[in-house]
């Protein structure tokens, strides 16, 4: 991960680098591999965008400014089939609404001032899931920043050559790259899923999202999955606050 830090302004990130020592080697390896997957998906994103008729600069600029793959693929898909770009942006925003609860779920990893804005910008599925997977706050912070900044480099870093290569890597589905994103996220939530109530709730949420997918616009089914929390609360998990009987 050191190389990623060095490519960013080293002075500004010194505190983050010291935090990186809090990260176990296995976590660093996993982050590097997730970033490789992001880079490969970025390649296919750039290629698909240009193949759909977008100018070269578009996937380059959008990958850097939006930095949320699913919504960018959706935007490209809607506009390429004749949709209005503003409508495509609103559909993309629906997909990205999950970043609000992500920000609530994260422990304080961002810092303040410009770091908070940069940190918010690099808050994505991968950086959130790696932060959640760590045990103590310094490791969470280190994992979040390493993965978040890595995505900031690797996503546009894949999209730009992908756009340049254009149609050459059009058939990414033959390589099974589309299975990588769900596999990366699944591998990362498996430790949390070993807890039985969490697993049941997550499976219920996934089932709700799947059942809603044929009828709702993209993005909404994933948000609807949160309704599974109600079933969890109704079962009164051990950590749920119990009303204490007033002591006499």
């Amino acid at each position: 991960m050191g190389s990623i830090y060095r490519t960013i302004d080293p002075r500004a990130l010194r505190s983050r680098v010291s935090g990186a020592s809090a990260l176990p080697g296995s976590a660093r390896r996993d982050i590097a591999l997730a970033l490789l997957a992001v880079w490969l998906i970025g390649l296919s994103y750039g290629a698909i965008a240009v193949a759909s008729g977008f100018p070269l600069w578009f996937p380059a600029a959008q990958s850097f400014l939006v930095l949320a793959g699913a919504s960018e693929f959706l935007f490209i898909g809607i506009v390429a089939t004749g949709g209005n770009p503003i409508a495509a942006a609103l559909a993309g925003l629906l997909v990205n609404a999950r970043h609000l609860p992500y920000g609530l779920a994260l422990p304080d990893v961002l810092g303040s001032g410009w770091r908070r804005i940069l940190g918010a910008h690099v808050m994505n599925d991968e950086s959130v899931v790696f932060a959640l997977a760590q045990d103590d706050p310094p490791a969470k912070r280190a994992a979040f920043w390493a993965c978040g900044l890595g995505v900031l480099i690797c996503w546009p870093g894949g999209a730009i050559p992908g756009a340049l290569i254009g149609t050459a890597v059009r058939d990414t589905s033959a390589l099974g790259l589309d299975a990588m994103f769900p596999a990366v996220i699944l591998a990362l939530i498996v430790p949390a899923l070993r807890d039985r109530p969490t697993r049941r709730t997550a499976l219920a949420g996934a089932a709700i999202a799947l059942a809603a997918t044929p009828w709702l616009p993209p993005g909404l089914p994933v948000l609807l999955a949160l309704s599974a929390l109600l079933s969890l609360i109704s079962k009164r998990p051990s950590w749920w606050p119990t009303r204490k009987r007033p002591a006499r």
Partner: protein
Amino acid sequence: MADSQAARPVKDTTLLIAGMGTLSVGTLAFRLCGPLLRERLTFPPWAEKLLETAAVILLAALVATTALTQGHAFVGPSRPAGVLVGGILAWRKAPFLVVVLAAAATTAVLRLLGVP
């Protein structure tokens, strides 16, 4: 490159930039909302646990929808089969690299065999 000239979906570059601007500014607003709210509120431990579970639910739903569906319909068996192989390996504590590569390889091999 040649066919990118032939099939340009948007002639109006201004509208394209407006769309990209809306998506990027709106997304950053979503991303900033959470941390800003957290600064103003302190959550008891049960609420922290609830929010963390919420994030896991969102991610699980994201896995399910991206693994099984494309648009509004079932994607075909090869992608979910790859993700399932990855999931089983992850559950058995296989290294992350093995999980991700096995998922992609399973899907690729199934497609090579003609499975959609």
